[in-house]
């Protein structure tokens, strides 16, 4: 046997033939390095800054204030308002994108002879840079020059001044986000769908399950890991919703569609209040982790 005995040449053995743990370390190293290099310092600084009163425009050096920023946040009515909008956007667009994405994925997975039109339609929303999606949809929803109102008019309906009302503004923003993000869902779910063995559907067919039943009993459970992944990240990005309302409504009317991320952006980039902005970011991080934990628990509970 050409292989060395483990006991005699322990070190070499470890290198050529890593145990599970050694191997795990090896495999996770690139990730850890990259993440460490790129975000650990920024994140550490973020946490630190959140404990300081660090408003550049005050002309004063940063001052350690402990959790004061967080107390301020709790008392900040704007924070609660943007948090509310963010919650609405999350609550509407995450399920919305999930349903839409699921429909798109199921459709793209159908054995159409030509798959590319469906797949293209699935990808295009996504390939459209986020920075422009909001602008373009603002244009679509424009009360006079927008194609949406034009269509409403053509169908004999009353056109809406979308951005004049908090409700319709929010609706337009949510629709746009759903449009833009369902591709993300659809792609992940489509990939998941493709790995479900056909034979299971055959077995279910023979067992007498109709399409809906098959969907519920086979597709959904087997798709669950993919759904959870998609949900986790969609939720995180929904909590971070920024570009679309920022370019579409500037948060208007008033601050009806302003989101937490916009508020963070404003505080950090425009107001240069780094302490407060960082504290807000930490709050957002905590919220994200809370949601993630809930999802992870969901997989573990039933997985």
């Amino acid at each position, binding site marked *: 046997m050409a292989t060395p005995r483990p006991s005699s040449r322990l070190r070499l053995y470890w290198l050529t033939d890593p145990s599970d743990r050694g191997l795990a370390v090896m495999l996770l190293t690139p990730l850890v390095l990259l993440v460490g290099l790129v975000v650990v310092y920024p994140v550490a600084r973020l946490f630190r800054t959140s404990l300081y009163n660090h408003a550049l425009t005050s*002309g004063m050096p940063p001052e350690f204030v402990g959790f004061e920023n967080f107390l301020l946040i709790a008392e900040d009515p704007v924070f609660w308002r943007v948090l509310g909008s963010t919650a609405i956007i999350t609550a509407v667009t995450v399920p919305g994108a999930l349903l839409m994405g699921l429909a798109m994925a199921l459709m793209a997975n159908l054995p159409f002879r030509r798959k590319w039109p469906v797949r293209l339609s699935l990808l295009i929303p996504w390939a459209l840079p986020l920075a422009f999606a909001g602008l373009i949809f603002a244009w679509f929803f424009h009360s006079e020059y927008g194609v949406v109102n034009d269509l409403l008019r053509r169908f004999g309906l009353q056109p809406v001044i979308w951005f004049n009302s908090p409700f319709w503004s929010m609706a337009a923003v949510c629709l746009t986000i759903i449009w833009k993000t369902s591709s993300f869902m659809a792609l992940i779910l489509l990939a998941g769908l493709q790995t479900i063995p056909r034979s299971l559907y055959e077995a279910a067919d023979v067992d007498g399950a109709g399409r809906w039943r098959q969907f519920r009993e086979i597709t959904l459970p087997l798709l669950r890991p993919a759904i959870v992944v998609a949900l986790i990240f969609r939720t995180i990005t929904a909590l971070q919703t920024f570009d679309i309302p920022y370019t579409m409504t500037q948060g208007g009317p*008033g601050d009806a569609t302003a989101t937490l991320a916009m508020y963070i952006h*404003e505080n950090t980039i425009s107001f240069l209040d780094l302490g407060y902005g960082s504290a807000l970011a930490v709050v957002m991080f905590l919220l994200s982790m809370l949601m993630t934990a809930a999802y992870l628990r969901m997989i573990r509970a039933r997985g």
Partner: protein
Amino acid sequence: SAETALRIFISSQHQPDIWREVLDRYQEAHPDVTVEIETGGNTSEAQAQYLNTLMSAEDSSLDVMILDVVRPAQYAAAGWTRPVEGVDMATYLPAYAEANTVGGDVVALPAFADAMFLYYRTDLLEKHGVAVPETWQELRAAAQKILAAEGDADLQGLSFQGKAIEGAVCTFLLPLWSLGGQVVEDGEFEMDDTTALASMELWKGFADDGTAKPNISEVATDDTRREFQAGDVVFAVNWSYAWAQAQGEESEVAGKVGVARLPAMEGGEQVSCLGGWEWGVSAFTEHPDEAEALVKYLSSPEVAKHMAVNGALLPAFPELYDDAEVLEAAPWFADAKEVVETARPRPVTPRYAEVSEVIRTTLNAVLAGVTTPEDGVTEIEARLRRVLR
């Protein structure tokens, strides 16, 4: 020889080629200095985004940067710009002296000027025998008259910026100033509720009585320009850039455009809102002296004239508006002088960004009908008081 390489930041919309010409001249005069242009994001916002990142990181790669007129105070407070010494600010239009002076320090020097104008349709005014309005009330009457006579459903009397963008701050301030109001004085919050309310009510009134469109809350600067240019607007409040476009070959209204000072409130004075850009020296520059010298040059009458003639940029020096060469290149500058002279800078405070945010979102909410003018004023008052504490 110790050659100094300077790097200046210009937005690519501000005609970097023409700036290059003046920089080349400067290099000829100062062989030991080379100046490189860095062009960045085209909007004030994109530049702020970029510059704020760079400056927060205390980056020394830029020596000189162009700043929107609302920013020098903020940059100075953050310690990002270095005061310029030995400049007689009196040579500039007074508003620029004000905008660039913080606590006695000159924190930046004007690059070029801008202001808001009243654009109007000479043909329509003439046709209906209406004079150029000098008060908003006159404007309303004129617009109503023309609208009624024209009977064109697509025609609107007045277009202004109601979207929650920076322009909306000017929209709010114009009537307020006209009535002698203020928002910030010497860095202190100093707003008079009656003038503020008058402003809110004025704009909301325009939307309600059909002088302006009901969707005014979604109108941004360029929407105003585009609609005016399409012939759908009688009066428009806009910056100077719209002039060239309105008279351009793609315009429906070329040759039928007039500009004037913005109307006053009844009993008030005619004021405009100051725009324009400033040169600032980065606090992190490794060549402070050379950078300062360069800024002084760039902010000199000589350069301003060159830019006016070749780039149609409004000069920050009053005398250049009477300069023959300038007027030959841009005859309408003659009309602009008055406007620029009566323009006021937006509140000069390090917390301007917050001030702006409060004002524009509130005005937007009022115009959209989400808040009443009264509540809007109360809201502005409450929030600004906290910001400017």
